[in-house]
């Protein structure tokens, strides 16, 4: 059943919440009369005036119209929708953390600081980097921060002319956007026939105006860039730096480090690799880790462990400065810390190994029905093509995706990367069991079968949801963005 807007249940005089009465002496018991008239708001805002039960039912019902990892498999490529442990949620709800103010005297927040310091240490170990920052609030924010550090590094070095950032055409859209936001010019790098960075193209574009090459490794096709050490040498020889987009770190953590691959700076997505929940699109967290070359440029404040406990360090001259209001999304950091404590070194490694195992298993079972243009051997994810279904039955990748919804699965990422036509990008993650994977594969195979006999029902899927496919054009042409 569709749920009305809460504002439509609104009624004057109804209240879900009351504040304690103001118990101040006369003269202090009113606000407005004391304010200069020209500072006073004139127009009321229209907010729902409803009862507590209205609020409870509204959001409870809305939650029943959302699919999360807790509801079923979520094989959304490049998003690493792994299980979000209940323990982490419990701990993130502890009053000993939620009721700490970011600016209270540092002697009274040593618990929070210890979480952040130890998390930085663990992330340094896992990535093979020297140190980092926890301030960035999401992956793209991490990219912004890392690139800003690179820019500052070259300015300090007197190489202001390095204004180009090289980015493979298969990269996530945030990579070029983050480069642009930092004032860089974006230069695309081609992929070779194997889906890897085209080394010749790279060589031709590396020069003394190049600031960095941004890479995701494994890349968005789920392939490990085998020539990474050569790439690293080429980049560094040209005087540029190598940036690692950590979106796919889940494939290799504990097995190899970006540090050993020669990366100078890396952002992580704690909400991908380190199991913090996505929350419907955030809050995420995008720590940036770097080697000693870039360390002086990290945002401030840094955290240091001294004899008298943890302290902030504000005096880094080369620091790019702050990138968020306080210290980052602390409750997200806390969850990631809990995850690392639970997993430990063996668990971190096992996560990568089983993520890769799961992806290869699903790929190997699907490959004979759905072509996988760049090969069914992959890392943690792979990209298949629905090209055949489209040619033969007019069934597109989108139709397959929507049909999965009716079977209780969140669809894979669609139409990305663009190297593959009618692409579906599947990342099962290590959380899914063999049985779940088998059922998922069977469902996809059954959909492929249905394409032959009943393509119409696929083209109109989903049928079980509260709404069917929406008129996206109308949404753009007649924007209805608020009540």
């Amino acid at each position, binding site marked *: 059943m569709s749920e009305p807007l809460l504002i439509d249940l609104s009624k004057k005089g109804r209240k879900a*919440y009351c504040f304690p009465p103001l118990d*101040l002496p006369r003269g202090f018991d009113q606000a407005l009369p004391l304010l200069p008239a020209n500072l006073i708001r004139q127009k009321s805002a229209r907010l729902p005036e409803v009862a507590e039960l209205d609020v409870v039912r509204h959001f409870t019902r809305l939650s029943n119209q959302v699919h999360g990892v807790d509801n079923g498999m979520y094989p959304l490529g490049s998003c690493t929708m792994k299980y979000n442990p209940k323990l982490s949620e419990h701990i993130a709800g502890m009053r000993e953390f939620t009721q700490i103010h970011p600016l209270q005297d540092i002697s009274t927040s040593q618990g929070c600081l210890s979480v952040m310091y130890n998390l930085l240490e663990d992330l340094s170990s896992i990535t093979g980097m020297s140190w980092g920052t926890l301030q960035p609030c999401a992956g793209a924010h991490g990219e912004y921060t890392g690139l800003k550090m690179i820019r500052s590094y070259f300015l300090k070095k007197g190489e202001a002319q390095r204004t180009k950032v090289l980015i493979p055409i298969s990269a996530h859209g945030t990579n070029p956007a983050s480069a642009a936001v930092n004032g860089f010019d974006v230069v695309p790098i081609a992929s070779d026939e194997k889906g890897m960075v085209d080394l010749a193209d790279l060589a031709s574009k590396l020069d003394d105006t190049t600031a960095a090459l941004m890479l995701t490794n494994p890349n968005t096709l789920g392939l490990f860039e085998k020539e990474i050490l050569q790439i690293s040498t080429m980049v560094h020889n040209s005087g540029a730096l190598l940036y690692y987009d950590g979106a796919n770190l889940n494939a290799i953590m504990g097995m190899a480090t970006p540090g050993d691959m020669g990366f100078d700076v890396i952002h992580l997505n704690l909400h991908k690799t380190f199991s913090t929940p996505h929350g419907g699109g955030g*809050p995420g967290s995008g720590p940036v880790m770097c080697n000693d070359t870039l360390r002086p440029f990290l945002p401030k404040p840094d955290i240091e462990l001294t004899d008298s406990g943890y302290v902030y360090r504000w005096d880094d001259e080369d620091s790019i400065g702050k990138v968020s209001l306080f210290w980052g999304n602390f409750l997200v950091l806390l969850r990631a810390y809990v995850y690392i404590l639970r997993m430990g070194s063996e668990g971190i490694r096992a996560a990568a190994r089983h993520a890769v195992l799961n992806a290869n298993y699903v790929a190997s079972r699907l490959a004979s029905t759905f072509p996988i243009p760049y090969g069914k051997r992959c890392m943690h994810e792979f990209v298949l093509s629905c090209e055949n279904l489209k040619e033969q039955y007019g069934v597109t990748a989108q139709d397959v995706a929507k049909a999965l919804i009716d079977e209780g699965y969140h669809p894979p990422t669609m139409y990305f990367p663009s190297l593959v036509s009618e692409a579906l990008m599947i990342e099962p993650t290590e959380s899914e*069991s063999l049985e779940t994977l088998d059922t998922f594969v069977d469902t996809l195979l059954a959909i492929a079968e249905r394409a032959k006999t009943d393509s119409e029902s696929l083209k109109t899927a989903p049928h079980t949801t509260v709404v069917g496919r929406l008129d996206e054009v109308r949404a753009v042409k007649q924007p209805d963005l608020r009540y």
Partner: protein
Amino acid sequence: MVYPYIPHTDEDRKHMLKAIGVDSLDQLFDGLSEDLLLSDSVPISHGRTEDEVQRMIDSIAQRNVRGIPFLGCGCYDHIIPATVKALSSLPSFVTAYTPYQAEMSQGLLQAIYEFQSMICEITGLDVANASLYDGANAASEAASLMIGAKRKATTVLVSETLHPFTLQVLQTWAKGTEHVIRLVGEKEGVVDLSSLASLLDPSCSGLIVQSPNRYGLLEDYTDVAGILHEQGCLFAISNDPLSLAIQKSPAEWDADIAIGDTQSLGLSLAFGGPSCGYMAVKESLLRKIPGRIVGATVDEQGRRGYTLTLQAREQHIKRERATSNVCSNQALAALMTTIHLSSLGWGGMVDAANQSYAKSHYLAYHLAQLPGITLIWDKPFWCEFPLVFSDAKRMRKFLQELRNEGIFAGVRLSSLTRQVKDELVLLVAVTEKRSREELEMYLAAARRVMK
């Protein structure tokens, strides 16, 4: 071997490896050369069980001290209805991704639509996005928007009375780019816009101000929008959104952009994060606003539904020509604000804002009577006010003695600005949550120290 959160049994692994056609898990990593594969496990500790982790965290948690917080500076201890945590922690809200698949995400999309609507209502502007990282990043996104909106513009005027950390984030934003942050000075605690017109050269794209400002003072923007608009410049106001229940809204000042942080609307202190930035703009800037936007439309049967829209602005389509690089935002925090506002209604918001006003004035009035403390600037303030101490030693003693009684008395401005001139300034925040008893405790202790 069983690893946490990994369901595979030995049998499973064997079966799967066979199906793949490899002999071992290691073989799956044969794309990585020997010199890349770690010979040892990464040097972090071994895994722990739930119980061990909980104990460890309990002992870490004990190193945090909770006091009665009269602390603000962008993070306030307001009352939060029990509904907020109960409903925002419903598992499908928590464990969903960005609602790219609209049919499977209607609940989330509708909630974001409601969030956008409420932000529009509160700011008075036309279009709001689905949230930004925080109030400081909302400011740098506003700066980007301004510069992108005016040809050849490079400069953004920014009031010196912005939150010190917001200023720092803006300065980072400009660093290494062609963008320039030009500060507009303060006078007696509020931004001095008396010579605004003279600052507006063609490179200038607009002005960002904040009210209540870094001192808690409310600023007067009479005529400001007119001067800016005349020169083709945009006007952005950053607010604590709760204050907008009382003070003039951005729309009422004829601002083009409203920004801020919804921490004061349903988010706990949480050591400063997650909070939730917001941005609302006039209709004319619709296609320039950063971040995600949800819109209503219909399906083939004409049923109303919600979807992410106007994605042509975004990075995954427009790549380096996107209006911003913002992708993930603070959706769950925005949901908390939506539930909070749904519970309070406008009446509740006005009540909370009024009480914050009244209680902060009560405390300020009585503290101002004490020797050695001055309430600087006789200006309207809301919820937070600046005290100046006569000397550093008494200030330290004051903070220490109150802390001994469990009262966190305020934030030293110098801890934000690192400037000597701010060392004697203490910012004291008093929300509607502080009970009369707590106010009297504060006053009694203050009188004891400052007698």
